[in-house]
């Protein structure tokens, strides 16, 4: 095909999913949730209106982190845990690029937790997809910081004892400006979230619930189950009331606590049901929702939070521009300084 020459999306020949397929053998296990995510990403990319050459996928190490090899864009499969830092450097140096990070629950929350938090704090304009399968896939099935308490693995033969992170709570606690969750096989929601993340100016953090059929099969079955998901997922849409279970249940403040109520005659009124405000500058509601887990509560899906804040790379460039706007820099003057003497 003819490669597009400019970043101007008008001038772009329409790209297709196939244009984003690197055309190499995909090396995940049969049935791995990563396949569905890959397909959704490849499918969504053309809709972003960004030429392939302006896109970079950066990853760490893990099954999930093989992702860049399968995308026909620029890609960097780096080392364990450091993808957010590498992406930060890349984006800071090259604001013209669209930088996507792919990481796992081990890569992003265990060894890479610090960089992830700092990227979100800084609000670097990068898009982070964390494939959460609640397990270490690549190293053959040890528990991860998102594994449920009591998870039996090779390294925890009588059950894990550490309380898992809630990735979205952690992100909100770190000051993330865009926080979303979606399931690997949700072919409808995933593209929407990718598009919203792309549109967001700042760090977008997306937790993707991903099934690992080999080491943690069915970890999200209860939530992702086609039939039950209406009852078990709380699909969030900005500006829409928070309803689920076919509109029979909703979210409301009950005695100062965000809670689930039944909706309808003799039950809670629609007026009591919270309208989802993803742009709320106060992260409290988003945080409260991020705490929710199956089975006690429906699992919030979609964009919990999307607020504006200056980006790190933007501010950095602004400072640079401000400095360079003062006129051409004089290298000789710099090197010479203002405290010299002549030797004849």
């Amino acid at each position, binding site marked *: 095909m003819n490669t597009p020459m400019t970043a101007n999306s008008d001038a772009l020949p329409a790209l297709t999913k196939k244009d984003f397929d690197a055309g190499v053998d995909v090396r995940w296990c049969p049935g791995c949730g990563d396949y569905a995510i890959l397909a959704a990403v490849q499918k969504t990319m053309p809709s972003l209106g960004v030429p392939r050459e302006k896109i970079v*996928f950066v990853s760490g190490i893990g099954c999930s982190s093989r992702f860049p*090899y399968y995308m026909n864009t*620029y890609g960097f499969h780096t080392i364990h845990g450091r993808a957010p830092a590498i992406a930060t450097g890349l984006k800071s*140096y090259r604001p013209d690029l669209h930088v996507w990070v792919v990481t796992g629950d081990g890569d992003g929350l265990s060894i890479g937790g610090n960089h992830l938090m700092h990227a979100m704090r800084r609000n670097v304009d990068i898009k982070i997809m964390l494939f959460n399968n609640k397990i270490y896939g690549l190293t053959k099935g040890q528990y991860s910081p998102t594994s449920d308490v009591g998870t039996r693995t090779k390294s925890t033969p009588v059950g894990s004892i550490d309380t898992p992170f809630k990735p979205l709570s952690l992100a909100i606690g770190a000051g993330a400006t865009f926080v979303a969750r979606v399931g690997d096989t949700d072919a409808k929601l995933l593209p929407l979230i990718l598009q919203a993340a792309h549109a967001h100016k700042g760090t977008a953090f997306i937790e993707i619930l991903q099934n690992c059929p080999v080491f943690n099969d069915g970890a999200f079955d209860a939530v992702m189950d086609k039939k039950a998901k209406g009852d078990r997922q709380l699909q969030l849409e900005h500006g829409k009331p928070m309803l689920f279970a076919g509109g029979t249940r909703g979210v409301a403040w009950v005695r100062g606590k965000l809670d689930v109520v039944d909706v309808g005659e003799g039950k809670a009124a629609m007026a009591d049901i919270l309208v989802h405000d993803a742009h709320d500058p106060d992260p409290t509601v988003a945080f409260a929702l991020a705490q929710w887990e199956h089975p006690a509560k429906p699992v919030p899906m979609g964009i919990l939070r999307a607020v504006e804040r200056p980006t790190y790379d933007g501010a950095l460039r602004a400072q*640079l521009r*401000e*400095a360079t706007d003062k006129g051409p820099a004089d290298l000789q003057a710099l090197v010479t300084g203002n405290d010299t003497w002549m030797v004849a």
Partner: protein
Amino acid sequence: MSQKPVHELDAVVIRFAGDSGDGMQVTGDRFTSESAHFGNDIRTLPDFPAEIRAPAGTLAGVSSFQLHFAHLPVFTPGDATDVLVAMNPAALKANLSGLKPHGVIIANTGQFGDRNLEKAGYATNPLADGSLSAFQVFPVDISRLTETAVEGTGLNTRAVDRCKNFFALGLCLWMYSRPLEHTLAWIDSKFGKTPDVAEANRRALKAGYFYGETAEAFPVRYSVRAAALPAGLYRNISGNKALAYGFITAAHKLGVELFLGSYPITPASDILHELSAHKRFGVITMQAEDELAAVTAAIGASFGGALALTTTSGPGIALKSEAIALATMTELPLVVVDVQRGGPSTGLPTKTEQADLLQALFGRNSESPVPVIAASTPADCFEAAFEASRVAMQYMTPVMLLSDGYVANGSEPWRVPDVAAIPEVKLDYVPQGSVFKPYARDPHTLARPRVRIGTPGLEHRIGGLEKEHVTGNISYDPKNHERMVRLRHAKIAGIARELPKTELAGGDSGDVLLLGWGSTRGAIHGAGIRLREMGRKVSTTHLRWLNPLPSDLAEVFARFHMVVVPELNLGQLAFVLRGKTLRDVRSICKVQGQPFREQEIIDKVLELMADINVSPFVVDVLEGARALTHASLA
């Protein structure tokens, strides 16, 4: 001008010492600047404690600045001091051992009260008990004289006290027949925003100067004539600053922007500070959350096309080593600066050492060859930075640049380079539309092709897994792995072809070749000159390149009966040279957080020259330690 007689001297070593809060670094800097302006050759040695401000009056809190100024070329800050300015008893005690017999002590008697004497561990006042009779002591109540001088400026007691270093400075300037103008101008520009402070400092400075001229105490003054330096425009420069300028210049000449990912750490932080101030030159600095992020952010920027830099000291290098190997595998340019300090672990964070050489060479998993170069003097840092940057970009490789606390904080006169005269370095980029093989190689440098990320049609993926030769695809093929391991080595080893012939000071052959690297240059060079003056057949040379080594080294070695390497470690380069050349390279080791004195090297060389029994098996440098210990294990 003064009516007192003026004695001519060839060289003077002066040391200003006081409490951390006494401003001794400023005093030293100013005296340095005056001496430089005057045309002396100079070398400096700042020395300060690890604490921000250790308890006032204690030995631990002493901060000092040593300056060697001369009308002959000098190479070190001086072995022993001629003049010690001691602002309190602790400063006296901590620095007395470095003073020459009959050396001058100017002591601030205002701080020699009982409490301070006690804090310094003096049972009696050394200024009064006769214990200093071997020296010329000039007791001056600098504290009180300063107070009097600045009376009426409206400063509070603390601020007044802070002026006393300018009194000391003024006195010393008088003593060495130096004008005050530059320092007065400097005070104006520095304290412009606080005119009362400026005024007080001016007054203190002058008061010190006139005190020298007036007081009976000082019968003579001295002068040190200008040195015969090559003609040109000069400035004084510290190592860290020269590094920063070198990197900015390199980015400019390479046609890219500079990206620094760094995490503060002594003694490297000043490079970050300096570069942060130069956004006008398109320099991007990122203070990262830690060293892991600092180096990987730089690698990210490198992937994006930057001249990517990361700066730290030894502990930071340890943390960065995994990522450096990623740059080796992905063959991305990266400059890693290690400003070495005393170790292991946190060690002596503000002191100097050269003990990270083996870490720089070998401190990464598997076969991860990295070019290693060292800066040898403050001014040399400029060229070292340029060289490291050029090689990183041309060979597509991480490069390790070794500096140390001594070079970083020390300063020397620098003939300002004409930047326009520095040639540009042209880099080839894979043109759009070409058939692009990410791991094809330049037949000369063996570098893989340089590509501008963002070029349509050149999309590709790289990573830390083994690559297939030419295509860059992931490959687990055994033979391919061996080939790639050897190619990565060959690429680095091949840099040796562009290294100049090894240059010697002294004869082309002789009894001893004294070889050094890094910050020991001045002491080794000076020792060599003096040894030759003593009639010894000693030549000296200094290595910029530690990996690869110059290819003529074994041949050069063959022309000397003995090769001796002085190092501020337990013999790291000597070990490497033994392994590479099988010559019985000897070591002179010092691991005290302090640079060599010329005399130390001279003494050891003479000792080694007497030793004719060269054992074929290594003389364990540690033998001595055992004796040393057992003696004290009563």
